[in-house]
C-alpha cells in the first residue's frame, strides 16, 4: 500500500513539475515565448548581443524571448536548426555577414533564401592595426615598408571571413604581398601583434579599444564608408583611394514563410527599442552603430551583400566549391 502511495505522489509531483505548458488562449501575436536562435556559444559576441537585446526588448514585447545557442560551422548549425522550425513567428535568428558568407563558401545548405528578413539593427566595421612599437604611422608608410620587405604577416580570423575578404582585397589593391595568418579569436591575434610575431592585423575596433586607449596599438585605417565615429582621426581606406568598403552588420531574420504580422510586430518593437538610451549606450560600448532597417530594406541589403561577398570570394578563388 505504501508503495502505491509513493508512486501516486511521484506521478503527481511530476505532473505539477511539467504541467506548466504554455496556454493556447488569446489571439494576438505573440501568445507564447519566442525562441531566439544564436549561432555562437554562450558568452560569444553574438550571444551577448542577443541577450542584451532580449532584455531591452522586454517592455515592447508581451512575451519573453528564449535564447537558444546552436553554435558551430560559422553559423551553419544555427541556420540549419532555425530553418527546420515552423515559420510561425515563434523562432527568430540573429545574423551577421556569416549569413551570406557561410553559404557562399559551400558550408551551409541553408542561406538567405530560406529566411525572411525582420530588421537590421546595427553596423560595425573592421580596422587595420599595428603595434605602436612599429615605426610606421600611416597606411602609406606601412605599404612602403611592406613593399621593401617583400611581404608581411597579417592576422585575420581565418579564410573566408569578412575581415579576411577585406584585408585580402586591400593588400591586392595596394600591391602588398601579404601572408594571412589565421587566428581563432581576437585575443590570440592581438597577443601575437603585441608580442611582435605578426606585422599587422584586422579586427573589430571594440576588441582593440583598450589597447588603443593605452597606446599599445595604432590604427592605420578602417573598412567603413566614412571615418568610423569613435576614431575620427583614423582615415577610411576609401578616402585613401582604395575602394574597399566592407561593412559588417547585425540583424534578425525568421524562417521563410513567417506571417507578415509577426515580422512587422517584431520589426516595430526593435525600432521602438532602438530609441532607448540603454540600448544606444550598449551599442556604443560595443563599437556598434545603430542602423535600423525594416524587413523589406534589410532583405534588399542582404541581397546586395550576398552579391558583394560572392564576387569578392570568387576574386580570391574561394567561391562555392566543395
Amino acid at each position, binding site marked *: 500500500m505504501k508503495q502505491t502511495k509513493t508512486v501516486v505522489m511521484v506521478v503527481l509531483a511530476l505532473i505539477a513539475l511539467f504541467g506548466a505548458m504554455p496556454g493556447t488562449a488569446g489571439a494576438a501575436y505573440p501568445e507564447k515565448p519566442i525562441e531566439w536562435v544564436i549561432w555562437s556559444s554562450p558568452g560569444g559576441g553574438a550571444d551577448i548581443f542577443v541577450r542584451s537585446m532580449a532584455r531591452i526588448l522586454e517592455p515592447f514585447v508581451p512575451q519573453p524571448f528564449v535564447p537558444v545557442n546552436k553554435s558551430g560551422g560559422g553559423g551553419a548549425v544555427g541556420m540549419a536548426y532555425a530553418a527546420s522550425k515552423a515559420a510561425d513567428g515563434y523562432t527568430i535568428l540573429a545574423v551577421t555577414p556569416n549569413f551570406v558568407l557561410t553559404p557562399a563558401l559551400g558550408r551551409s545548405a541553408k542561406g538567405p533564401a530560406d529566411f525572411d528578413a525582420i530588421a537590421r539593427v546595427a553596423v560595425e566595421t573592421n580596422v587595420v592595426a599595428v603595434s605602436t612599437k612599429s615605426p610606421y604611422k600611416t597606411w602609406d608608410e606601412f605599404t612602403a615598408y611592406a613593399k621593401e620587405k617583400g611581404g608581411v604577416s597579417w592576422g585575420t580570423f581565418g579564410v573566408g571571413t569578412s575581415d579576411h575578404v577585406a584585408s585580402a582585397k586591400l593588400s591586392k589593391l595596394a600591391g602588398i604581398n601579404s601572408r594571412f595568418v589565421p587566428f581563432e579569436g581576437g585575443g590570440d591575434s592581438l597577443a601575437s601583434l603585441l608580442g611582435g610575431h605578426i606585422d599587422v592585423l584586422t579586427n573589430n575596433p571594440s576588441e582593440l579599444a583598450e589597447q588603443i586607449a593605452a597606446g599599445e596599438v595604432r590604427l592605420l585605417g578602417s573598412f567603413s564608408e566614412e571615418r568610423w565615429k569613435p576614431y575620427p582621426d583614423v582615415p577610411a581606406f576609401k578616402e585613401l583611394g582604395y575602394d574597399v568598403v566592407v561593412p559588417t552588420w547585425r540583424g534578425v531574420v525568421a524562417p521563410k514563410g513567417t506571417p507578415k504580422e509577426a515580422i512587422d510586430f517584431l520589426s516595430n518593437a526593435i525600432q521602438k527599442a532602438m530609441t532607448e538610451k540603454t540600448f544606444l549606450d550598449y551599442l556604443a560600448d560595443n563599437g556598434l552603430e545603430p542602423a535600423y532597417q525594416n524587413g523589406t530594406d534589410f532583405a534588399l541589403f542582404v541581397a546586395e551583400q550576398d552579391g558583394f561577398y560572392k564576387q569578392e570570394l570568387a576574386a580570391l*578563388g574561394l567561391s562555392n566549391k566543395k
Partner: protein
Amino acid sequence: MKNFKYVNSVLGAILFLFGIWCFVKSGEYVPLIEMEGQVGANVFPELFSGALMFLAALMVILDVKNFTKPTFVSFESFGIVAVISVLCFVFWYCIPKAGFLFSACIFTCVLTFLATRKIRPLDLVSVVVVTGLIYFVFATLLKVPLPHGFFI
C-alpha cells in the same frame, strides 16, 4: 574467441585498412588558394594516417612473429553489452520524437530492470524520481533546451 591467438593481427589489419581509407580521403583536401609558407590541409591527415598504417602493419608483424604478448578476449557476456548499446541508440533516436523526459524515464527503467532482471517497483520509482529531478535541474533551472516531444 577465447583461444584465438591472433586478435592483434586482425585488429592491425582492420586499422591498416582504416588508415588507407583516411589517407585516400585526406588527399582530397587540397586548399583553394596558395600562400607562401602555407602547409596544405591534406598534409597532417596524410601524415597521421600514414603513421596509423605503419603502426598497424607493425602490430600485425610483431604479433605474427610472436614478439608481443597476444591479447585474449572473452566475449562471454557480450550479449548484455550489445543490448545496452542498441538501447542507447534507440534512446537517442526517440529523444526528438517522444521528448527527452518521456524517453529518459523509459530508458532508465529498462536499464534498471536489465541490471537485476527483476521488476522491483521501488527501484523503478526511485529511478523515475531521479530522472525527473535531473530533468528539472537541467531543463528548468539551467534552461538547457532539452527536446520536447508529442508527450511532454
